[in-house]
């Protein structure tokens, strides 16, 4: 039989039972739709996490204080903080693979100013901080090296702090009190949103690290050093370089590191592997409904073969070969499942968009989902259509003709 006639014959018999065809297709529609929605949700979550991780900074490397052992018990990270501004300066000077280095002096305190007061994190940083964190100032300006050197009492505040203390007004030039020290606001940071851990990154005040050390923390040790690798591919090498410089700076000959160096890929990996497992699980659950849809097709095709036994007998009597009958039934089941797959694809896209709209989740459907959906539904059609079709093709024409 020619292909066009095959398609014609298949579409004729599919259209003869519209309601049944629709219901059978519905199984595939739901299956493919569910898979698409779940892939979209999982994919969206991964994209969101990637964005959040990269919002931490460009090629970020973090140097943290190491752990220490006290009386046999490891006290965990930061027990013996030996990080100093001098380390940061040495890294900045000698690091060939580092584009930016900034010490971070962190403290949490009450900030008073504008229309009220607000407890927030105060980070003492260098001018490189913005480049490392890939951040920008929307209003006013960031402090410069001279401000850092002089230890000026100036601050750049995050968007959350700005809206809480200065709702509706531009805080640039205003005075705030951090702890008991008066600071002048020189700029406001662009909003950055939550990080991967759900923390508000905009709830922060940035001041020169020198000022923070002298006026706020009163500690020569610094909480961490942030650095940016020049090249994303060199992060691991840059990490090694940092280790070398730090060991030299701390004069560790043979002794263990008294610091820890981590990069954002490690952090990102942990987060994405979780979402990958989750989205894989979701897709697996959704594909069960595709399987159920396939069984629905098989069921209907079996009923159809029984019901059309006589028709099969007639076709065989007038010269149809077993292969003709097989192909006809296969084409029917594949047509139903592919059609269902296409409708399911549209439904899945719509469903994902709707879900994203309602829940506010990021959903993104990869373009490959189209090919996968159509391919899978065709495969379901062939797989679950084959048994009934073979059953039809194997019928004895004499008995089929006599079938009532």
């Amino acid at each position, binding site marked *: *039989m*020619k292909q066009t*006639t095959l398609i014609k*014959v298949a579409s*004729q018999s599919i259209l*003869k039972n519209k309601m049944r065809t629709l219901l059978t297709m519905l199984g595939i529609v739901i299956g493919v739709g569910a898979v698409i929605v779940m892939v979209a949700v999982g994919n969206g979550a991964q994209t969101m996490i990637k964005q959040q991780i990269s919002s931490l900074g460009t090629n970020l490397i973090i140097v943290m204080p190491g752990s220490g052992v006290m009386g046999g018990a490891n006290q965990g990270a930061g027990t013996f903080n030996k990080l100093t501004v001098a380390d940061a300066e040495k890294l900045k000077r000698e690091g060939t693979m580092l584009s930016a280095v900034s010490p971070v002096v962190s403290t949490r305190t009450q900030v008073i100013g504008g229309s009220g007061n607000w407890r927030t994190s105060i980070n003492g940083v260098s001018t490189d901080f913005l480049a490392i964190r890939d951040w920008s100032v929307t209003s006013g300006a960031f402090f410069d090296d001279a401000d850092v050197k002089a230890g000026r009492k100036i601050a750049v505040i995050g968007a959350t702090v700005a809206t809480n203390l200065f709702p509706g007004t531009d805080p640039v030039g205003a005075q705030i009190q951090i702890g008991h020290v008066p600071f002048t606001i020189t700029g406001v940071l662009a909003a950055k949103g939550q990080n991967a851990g759900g923390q508000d990154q905009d709830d922060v005040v940035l001041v020169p690290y020198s000022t923070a050390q002298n006026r706020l923390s009163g500690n020569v040790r610094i909480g961490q050093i942030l650095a940016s690798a020049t090249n994303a591919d060199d992060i691991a090498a840059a990490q090694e370089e940092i280790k070398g410089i730090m060991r030299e700076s701390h004069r560790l000959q043979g002794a263990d590191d008294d610091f820890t160096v981590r990069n954002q890929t490690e952090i990102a990996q942990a987060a994405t592997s979780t979402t990958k497992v989750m989205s894989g699980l979701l897709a697996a659950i959704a594909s069960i409904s595709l399987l159920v849809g396939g069984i629905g097709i098989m069921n209907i095709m079996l009923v159809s073969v029984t019901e059309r036994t*006589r*028709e099969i*007998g*007639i*076709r*065989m*009597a*007038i*010269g*149809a*070969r*077993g*292969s*003709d009958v097989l192909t006809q039934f296969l084409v029917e089941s594949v047509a139903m499942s592919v059609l269902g797959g296409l409708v399911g694809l549209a439904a899945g896209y719509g469903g994902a968009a709707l879900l994203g709209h309602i829940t506010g989740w990021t959903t993104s459907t990869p373009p490959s989902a189209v090919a996968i959906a159509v391919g899978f539904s065709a495969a379901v059609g062939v797989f679950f259509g084959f048994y009934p079709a073979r059953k039809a093709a194997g019928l004895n*024409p*004499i008995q089929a*003709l006599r079938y009532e």
Partner: protein
Amino acid sequence: MSTNPVIHISNVKKVYTMGTNKVFALRGVDLTVGAGEMIAVMGSSGSGKSTLMNILGCLDVPTEGSYELDGIRVDGLNRNQLADLRNQKLGFVFQGFNLLSRTSALDNVELPLLYDRSGRKLDTRALATESLRRVGLGDRLDHQPSELSGGQQQRVAIARALVTSPKLLLADEPTGNLDSHMTVEVMALFQELNDQGITVLLVTHEPDVAQYAKRIVEVRDGRILRDHPVVDRRDAAADLATLNAAGPDADVAVLEEAA
């Protein structure tokens, strides 16, 4: 045209094994049907005429014996070869019409041509239309079986059987589901087609119907009991004219009186 007989079977036997029992449906049948014959196979149920019909129709193969259809050895062919043979050489007409429901007359008649594997280029629509015209249904092309009378449905089935220009028209109780008037109508068509040179073999248990053929073969207990030419052959066209003249309420009684 080939000089081969359309059908030539010799010593055909068919044995069915049912559990431990062996049922001898055919116990050695010899039959030769030449081109242009119109032959009626008669017999009661269980006589083996259905089995004979199935073997002649290439739907079944004999357990023993040989069968040549238009010079081609049929015994020993596989399923696909039998299917192709049915498509090329035979036209089937069944008692229950066996048309595809919810499918137009034209699509029904076109069907055998769709399974043609000879590779020739066929204008299937035109051939199907022509075939329906030939049976007098040129104005019913788009009608579905449910919209046609029994006689008309059987004529569609005959058109379907004719569309491939078969060597042999095989009709299995073609009038079994029809009333007397339609029976005569259908038999008139068979006679007309036979006059045009088509070989017709019909299976029936009605002596009236067999009288329209040129030759009668009686089958009993798996053997051919009698094989004789028809004397007093009836002319269905004339019978039809008598019936039509007698009006719509007339039945076979009119024919019997006329005869």
